[in-house]
Structure formats: C-alpha cells, structure tokens
C-alpha cells in the first residue's frame, strides 16, 4: 500500500512544487506551495515521523505558507504577475537543475546509498525519545533556538516598523 501512497504523494508534492513556481497567479503559487508542504508532511507520516509531520503542518503549512500568501496579497500589483521569464533563462535554469539531478544521481549511484534499506525489524523512533533528546542533549540548542526566534522577531519588527516620523520629513522617496 505504501507504494501507491508514496507515488501519489510524490506526484502531488512534485507537481504542486512545479505549479507553485510556474503558476501565472502568484497567489496560486502560494497555495500550491502549501499543498507541496503538505505532501512533505505526508512523506513524514510514511516515515513514521508523525511528530515531525505535525510540526511541519503547524509551522510550515500553518505559518510559513500563510505568511507567504499574506505577503503575496500585500505586495500584489500588476507588475508582479505580468513579467515573464525569457525562454533562454528558463532553458539555462532547466539545464542547471538537470545538472543537479545528475549530480545527485552520480553520487547516489556511485555510493552505497541505493542499497540502504529500512529495517522493519527495528521499531520507529518513539516520540518520547525525541522529547528526551530535546530536553537533555539538545537542551542548549533549544535555548539558542529561542534566541534565534527572538532575533528573527526583533529583526522582522524592526524592518516592518514604519518610520513615520522620518518619513514625514522626507515625503518623496
């Protein structure tokens, strides 16, 4: 069963990823991104990482994608939609991405990665273990993460804050 589900998820994820980039309307792109992220969450579920999947949905789909969509709506203007990329650039981009694929293929093919396998004998990671790791070994990281998020918030706030006082002095940009 997992096979079919895997293929379906793959198609969903990859397809929506393509759509998110190639859709004419940026808004649809945002939505497609959310779908793609959901697909990833699905993969996580397949991989027995439900906690991570939940986190993915909460943070990525719930926060990031929504944030993107909001931004899309905020910055929406005719320009953002009409400009298209030239074919030349597209082709070079495709070449690069294919090169990347080839690179990964080469590395995977050259190494023993393709022989990796999941051993069903070993049980999947327990959520509790994750928690324990988080609170013991990784506890300093958690604190640092807190600082990181604080930094992001402070930074975002500082950027988003409209500097009305100064802007009055300088009406025209």
């Amino acid at each position, binding site marked *: 069963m*997992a*096979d079919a589900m895997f293929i379906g998820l*793959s198609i969903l994820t*990859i397809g929506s*990823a*393509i759509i998110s*980039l190639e859709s004419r309307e940026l808004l649809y*792109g945002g939505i497609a*991104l959310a779908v793609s*992220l959901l697909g*990833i969450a699905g*993969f*996580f579920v397949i991989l*027995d*990482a439900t*906690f*991570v999947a939940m986190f993915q949905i909460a*943070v*990525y789909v719930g926060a*990031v994608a929504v*944030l*993107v969509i909001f*931004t*899309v709506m905020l*910055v929406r*203007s005719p*320009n*953002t939609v009409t*400009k298209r*990329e030239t074919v030349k*650039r597209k082709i*070079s*981009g495709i070449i*690069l*991405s294919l090169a*990347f*694929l080839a690179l*990964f293929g080469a590395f*995977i093919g050259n190494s023993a*990665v*393709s022989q*990796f*396998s*999941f051993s069903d004998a*070993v*049980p*999947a*990671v327990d959520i509790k273990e*994750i928690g324990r*790791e988080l609170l013991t070994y*990784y506890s300093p*990281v958690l604190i640092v*993460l807190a600082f*990181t*998020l604080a*930094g992001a918030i402070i*930074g*975002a706030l500082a950027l*988003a804050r409209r500097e009305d006082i100064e802007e009055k002095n300088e009406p025209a*940009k």
Partner: protein
Amino acid sequence: MNQPSDFIIVAAVLISIGIYGIVVKRNALRLIISIELIANAVNLVIVAFSRMLPNSQGQVFVLFSIAISAAEVAVGLGIMIIAYRFYKDIDVTEYKNLKN
C-alpha cells in the same frame, strides 16, 4: 520499494526544482518559495535517514530545521516588503544598483 533511496530521489527532484526556481524566477516571493521547497526536500532526506538508522536525532534535527526556516522566512519577507516599498515591485532583476 519504498527504500530510502526513493525518498532521496524525490528530495533530489524537489531540490532541482527549487534550484530551477531560484535561478529563473524574477519574483522575489517565488524565490522564497523555491528556497522553502529546497529546505523541505532536505528535511525529507533527514527524516528518511532517521527512519533508516533508526535514530531520533534526525527528527530532532528536522524540528530545529523547520523552526529555523520559519524564522528565516519571517525576516526574509520583512526585507521583501521593504523592497516592495522602494520599487513597487518585487522583481529581483530590478535590484541592480549594486554591481561590478
């Protein structure tokens, strides 16, 4: 089927798409979207490894990674919004004041 390499291949495809996006797309938001795709693909790889080993550290890693991406995006979008204020546009090809 359903071997780790399958997940890695999916991730590789996603990364390639992301790479395509960042070198082709003019819209700054699409660039962010591309980067997010790459980040997710990477997470997928790690979770796959985590399942394969099996090892809890990978999942913890991914948790941090997701959180970081979120923080990054927040700041990134802030920057984009300011950029939009200047140019009334978020076409990154317009941002060419600094060159040479």
